């Protein structure tokens, strides 16, 4: 899933200066699962913003709270258009995709309440970790199901650099060496042969730098 976390309250609050009526929209998909922008978080943030405005002695802040199935889909965003028009500002509590779909379809000023972090999952209660680098050309079949793009600090393709030590990355003892993990997995599964081949340079055209990427499925088009 897309993992996101809340922006600092002060940062969001500063963006509300001069606004009286704010529409706050959560999303029931990834950000609900990672507890950053679901119905519960929308309610908490709305209350916090109202109280902060009240304590500051400014004009009362009126909030309308909505949580849609998903913001990355016009089907759920477009119906908010009339409601958005009744407000001074829209706060999206979805990932960056949701913020953009809202801005695109509502014709309103939309601000993000979250920082979108990465494609990952929960490794233990309260901790999420990146797993996918969204490079557009998956190599997990060559690396024992561990992504060198996302999990090596240098996105190396031909094994661990000279900074790998005791299973840790040179960057920090809090970071596991991705290539040590790959090595261990391939060794355990008897596939170390995969590490002896020289991997050619990656074609990053599938990854980024070519403008927004698109997937076109002719079989699904109307």
């Amino acid at each position, binding site marked *: 899933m897309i993992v996101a976390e809340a922006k600092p309250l002060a940062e969001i609050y500063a963006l509300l200066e001069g606004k009286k009526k704010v529409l706050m929209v959560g999303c029931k998909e990834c950000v609900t699962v990672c507890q950053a922008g679901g119905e519960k978080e929308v309610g908490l943030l709305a209350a916090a913003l109202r109280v902060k405005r009240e304590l500051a002695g400014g004009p009362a802040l009126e909030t309308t709270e909505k949580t849609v199935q998903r913001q990355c889909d016009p089907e759920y965003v477009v119906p908010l258009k009339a409601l958005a028009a009744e407000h001074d500002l829209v706060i999206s509590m979805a990932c960056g995709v949701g913020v953009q779909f809202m801005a695109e379809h509502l014709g309103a000023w939309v601000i993000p309440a979250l920082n979108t972090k990465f494609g990952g999952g929960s490794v233990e209660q309260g901790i999420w970790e990146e797993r996918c680098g969204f490079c557009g050309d998956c190599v997990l079949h060559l690396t024992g199901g561990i992504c060198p793009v996302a999990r090596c*600090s*240098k*996105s*190396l*393709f*031909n*094994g*661990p*650099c*000279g*900074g*790998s*030590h*005791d*299973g*840790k990355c*040179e*960057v*920090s003892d809090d970071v596991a*060496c991705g290539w*040590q993990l790959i*090595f*261990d997995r391939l060794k355990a599964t008897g596939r*170390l042969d995969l*590490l*002896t*081949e*020289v*991997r*050619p*340079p*990656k074609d*990053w055209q599938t990854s980024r730098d070519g403008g927004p990427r698109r997937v076109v499925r002719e079989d699904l088009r109307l």
Partner: protein
Amino acid sequence: MTEASAAVTGQPGPQLKSGSHLERIFEAGHFAVTAEIGPPKSVSSKSIREHAAMLRDYVDAVNLTDNQTAIVRLSSIAAAVHVMSEGVEPVVQITCRDRNRIAIQSDLLGAYSLGVRNLLCLSGDHQVFGNHPGSKNVYDIDSIQLIAAVRDLRDRGVFMSGEKCRYSPRMFIGAAANPFADPFEYRALRLAKKVAAGADFIQTQAVYDLERFEAWMGMVRDMGLHERVKIIAGVVPAKSAAALRYVSTVPGMRVPERLIDRIAGAADQAAEGVKICAETVAHLREIEGVAGVHIMAIAWEKIVPDIVQQAGLLPRPRFEARTDAV
């Protein structure tokens, strides 16, 4: 083809890949000695030229580091030009951290056109270690892919795109190996990949732990790699017990505790550090498959002649001057 006619065609000469002094040292069967100069964090070439002049008669070639530890410094290629002006052969270090394949290949052409014949292909220290931790790293290609690219330009005359290069750089290709990093059992396999990609010589991480180094060399010899690539063992003289203690904490370094104790117990710690370094060089020289030493005395370059002398590696061989500029 004589060396004189080779000079006219811009070719390196019979059986030589690059014709660099370092390559000729190996070809003639000599034990190579190289050193390292860290370019300054300024435009002044004074320290580079002074160190090069001082090292001229003591080493066969000098490495110029490429923004080592991710700190902005005078470029390794520009530094190489200053070194050459002092009559010293450079080994230009090039990392994959700061440049994509376009910039790297462009720099290769530029470096060769300026007379550079030795290249050391590195991944590069992560930017978090340097003075611009907020910078974005590149790693469009990794060090092994870089080695293959330099080889393809030399041996096939083609860029990474497959497009032909009319006058292509003919570099003597170096790579790094760290016998002290993990996973240990993969380290010789990784070296094999670098050799397969086209490395002609290898510079290792600084050797303090000779036991581990010998174990690694055993694996290297078992794979026959020492016959396919020239292995230059790295050494770093320790100025004090405290300095060596710090080195022992750097990721990918291994320092036996007894060495730190030995320096701590000496009346003159720096002299003891030099003595240990010279002893290490003498030991390395006896290991089958070790073809040279690389003395990394960054910020202590002036000690290199003493180490070379104490290790009995003088005088350094000289060859006829090379005039193969394109």
